[in-house]
């Protein structure tokens, strides 16, 4: 197929931010196709500036293009103005690398990182001219795949996709390529046969080979339609990151994007065990990248990209074994990384971490963010985020003492067992942090940022019915009123109606596909964007399909209910998840198993793995996971603490 560039070029004058559609990044490729190649088009279902920095897609882009039997190009969701121009001009979804039309690829593979992007996936399949339902696709039609964190409950997307991939993609994309190349060589065009062969690959779930059964609002089970489909699909796990030093040719965009810096992943997985956190459950066990390799990747990356900043990424970078030594080594001129700013995007709440952050911060210290998540010690024991008030005050004291002037605190509301006292505890913590800061400077500000909790599949809170938007709004009003007279404290919040819609896709069953389709057909694309989101679209769509927010998002599930993701496994034992739920209700903490004996969550034993860490000792500072203060009601102290260990 030829390039659509000559058709695309004239409409770019008329659209906002045309650089979203031109590719041409440092590190990008215009792969040549050879007979027999399996051609992948990887897609991020949001704007270019959100999707381009996605590390997962960048890694797959590189791994696939390094193969002799595959090519890989990229695409992103065209913004509304561009979509309109494309539909008017009859231009289909295209790759930003070679401008080939999407339906000239064998596979269109979406990264699903957020539930509210699902309607964009539908729109992009439609723009590509590919039949919307997997069941309607024939022989040579492009296969639609999904991967990423959201695929631990892919059921709302099940009717639209040929396959969902669970877990790390590095190895499985090669296996999929080989399977497809084989059936192409054999001349197989029967879609059912192709699905069955895909379903043999560990980690690949083919929804079309399973039929869920329902009774009213509940799912009651799942029928397997072909004996070649496995009863349970287990996720894929890359055990040794040291063998996968990707990306090696990360993309440097020509235009503004989020996280516009070199990103080097230092580990995967997290065993802090926060019970609300899906990422911390589904990515176990912890797998650290060897320190020398991190330094090599930073050096090579800075050299190749011309960036002046590197972010060391993970779910909790301060937990990397020997983080201080790593940072010191990167910043040492002898390491050859050049004039580099190091940033740690996820800070742990303790003074020690702030000390490290201060040591590497160059230039202006603008703002520092912490995530206590719960407003009271009781609430934090429920969610197993075991940060004591002393930890928080010591951390923020250290931040203000080091010259930071703005501190931002992230919290969730709508958590299980939450009372108004817990909600008001958020303002109380914020008020005391303001007091801590005022010892240093009158002008400091503290921002409390509040999000509505959406329960996620494969977590201990997967049974819990989320708060209605009205209840979340009531709690936000409580917070606003309580904080009104607190000088220096401001409260920001996430739209509670967006949390409600997120819940529909998060825990919904296969029947939510029809709801998503209605929302999409009603114009509901880019639902992550406040200006594009309206809850009434979702409520109308739910009602038309015989559902409601109450029956999908807000309903508690009992332990004996068959959950729509029961046949999909992140390795976690059901007993572990339920046990954690009971511990939450009992306000009992669970320690971090990196430094305490194994409690058999299932991740390591199911996968035949163990943690891959460089140090058996718990990090200095911080109470969580080190066994301190689990049943202690910590007295509030506002004393000055040493800044770092």
């Amino acid at each position, binding site marked *: 197929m030829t390039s659509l560039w000559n058709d695309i070029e004239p409409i770019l*004058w008329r659209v906002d931010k045309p650089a979203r559609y*031109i590719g041409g990044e440092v590190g990008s490729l215009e792969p040549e196709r050879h007979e027999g190649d399996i051609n992948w088009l990887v897609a991020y279902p949001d704007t270019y500036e959100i999707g381009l920095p996605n590390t997962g897609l960048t890694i797959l882009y590189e791994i696939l293009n390094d193969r002799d039997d595959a090519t890989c190009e990229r695409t992103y969701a065209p913004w509304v103005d561009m979509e309109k121009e494309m539909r008017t001009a009859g231009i289909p979804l295209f790759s930003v690398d070679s401008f080939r039309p999407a339906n000239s690829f064998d596979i269109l593979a979406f990264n699903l990182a957020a539930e509210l992007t699902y309607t964009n996936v539908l729109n992009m399949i439609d723009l590509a001219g590919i039949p919307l339902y997997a069941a309607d696709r024939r022989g040579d039609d492009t296969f639609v795949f999904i991967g990423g964190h959201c695929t631990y409950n892919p059921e709302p997307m099940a009717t639209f996709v040929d396959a969902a991939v669970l877990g790390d993609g590095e190895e499985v994309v090669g296996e999929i390529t080989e399977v497809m190349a084989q059936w192409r060589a054999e001349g197989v065009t029967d879609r059912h046969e192709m699905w069955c062969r895909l379903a043999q690959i560990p980690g690949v779930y083919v929804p079309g080979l399973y039929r869920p059964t329902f009774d009213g609002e509940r799912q009651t089970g799942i029928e397997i339609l072909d004996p070649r489909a496995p009863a349970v699909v287990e996720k894929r796990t890359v055990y040794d990151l040291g063998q996968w030093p990707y990306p090696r040719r990360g993309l440097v965009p*020509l*235009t*503004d994007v989020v996280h516009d810096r070199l990103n080097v992943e230092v580990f995967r997985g997290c065993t802090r065990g926060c019970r609300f956190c899906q990422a911390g459950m589904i990515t176990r066990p912890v797998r650290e990248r060897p320190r020398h390799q991190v330094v090599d990747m930073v050096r090579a990356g800075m050299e190749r990209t011309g960036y002046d900043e590197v972010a060391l990424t993970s779910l909790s970078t301060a937990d990397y074994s020997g983080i201080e030594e790593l940072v010191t080594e990167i910043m040492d001129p002898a390491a050859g990384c050049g004039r580099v700013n190091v940033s740690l995007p996820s800070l742990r709440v303790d003074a020690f971490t702030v000390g490290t952050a201060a040591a590497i911060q160059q230039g202006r210290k603008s703002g520092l963010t912490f995530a206590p998540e719960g407003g009271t010690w009781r609430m934090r024991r429920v969610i197993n985020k075991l940060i004591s008030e002393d930890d928080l005050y010591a951390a923020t004291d250290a931040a203000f003492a080091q010259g930071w002037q703005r501190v931002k605190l992230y919290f969730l509301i709508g958590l299980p067992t939450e009372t108004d006292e817990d909600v008001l505890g958020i303002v109380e913590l914020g008020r005391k942090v303001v007091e801590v800061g005022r010892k240093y400077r009158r002008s400091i500000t503290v921002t409390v940022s509040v999000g509505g909790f959406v329960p996620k599949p494969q977590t201990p809170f997967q049974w819990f019915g989320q708060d209605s938007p009205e209840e979340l709004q009531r709690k936000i009003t409580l917070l606003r009123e309580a904080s009104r007279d607190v000088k220096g404290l401001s409260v920001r919040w996430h739209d509670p109606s967006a949390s409600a819609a997120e819940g529909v896709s998060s825990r919904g069953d296969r029947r939510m596909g029809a709801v998503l389709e209605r929302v999409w057909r009603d114009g509901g694309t880019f639902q992550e964007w406040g200006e594009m989101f309206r809850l009434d679209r979702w409520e109308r769509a739910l009602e038309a399909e015989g559902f409601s927010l109450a029956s999908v998002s807000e309903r508690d599930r009992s332990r004996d209910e068959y959950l729509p993701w029961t046949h999909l496994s992140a390795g976690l034992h059901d007993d572990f998840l339920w046990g954690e739920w009971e511990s939450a209700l009992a306000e009992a903490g669970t320690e971090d198993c990196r430094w305490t004996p194994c409690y058999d969550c299932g991740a390591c034993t199911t996968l035949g793995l163990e943690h891959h860490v460089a140090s058996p000792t718990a990090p200095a500072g911080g109470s969580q996971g080190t066994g301190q203060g689990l049943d202690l009601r910590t007295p509030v102290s506002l004393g000055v603490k040493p800044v770092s260990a």
Partner: protein
Amino acid sequence: MIVLPPRLRVRYTRVGRVRFISQRDTARIFERAMRRLHAPVKYSEGFSPHPILSFSAALPTGGASEAEYLDVRFDAAEVTDERFEVGESSDDSLRAFGQALTEVLPVGMVVTGAVELDGSELSLQEAVACMRWEVDVRASEPPAIDVRIANLMAAAEVVVERQRKGRPVVDNIRENIAVMESDATPEGARITVDLLTHPRGVRLSELLTALGSDIELLRATRTHQWIDQHGERHEPVAVGTFAVVTPPALSEMDSALTRSSSREREQHEQRTD
């Protein structure tokens, strides 16, 4: 070994798909390109030091150009790569630098010339007096483009509405239009226009609006920017020119010495800020 002068003016193109980036994107691309090259660019002082690069008038997003300019300063203290030195440069060094820079720029951005500056020059924004655009357009209604141009050139006033300091104002842009002509093309017309930049520049979009609301812009290329010197226009850097400052003749030595000592004083002041 590439020896770079303390001050350099670079001419480059922005053609092909890369023209859809913004001027801010262009600046960032040059910053990163200089870092990838390990070019010893002088950094500003202050909380967040940044490389000192200054550009000619912003090129609109989507506009192509064969004549973009950039002034850059180099600093011996920033040399980290033995390939580079800052000092007495040569034409060959500048040519080699131009090639090396092109290699780390996106496709469509090509360095086409570079000349050393002695520090006495006006900035590009101040110096450029006139620019030429070639613009392909299509009009959906009569009259024909050439008729509209004739009417516009015959008018005493061509007014455009603008926002200034948040308030709507009306400006006459007729004085900015030095020459405007058109040729018929299969698609419509190609307009060639020379726009004066002082006292206030004119946006291409403003000019097209003045020609009629039905005008569709197909392509636009800035082909020249000129500096006014003793009533004659000169290109800041001609295509293919890679040249160091010619050593001054004896009679001019005094003024050159004064200039260089004032430059040293200025550098010294910046260091001690």
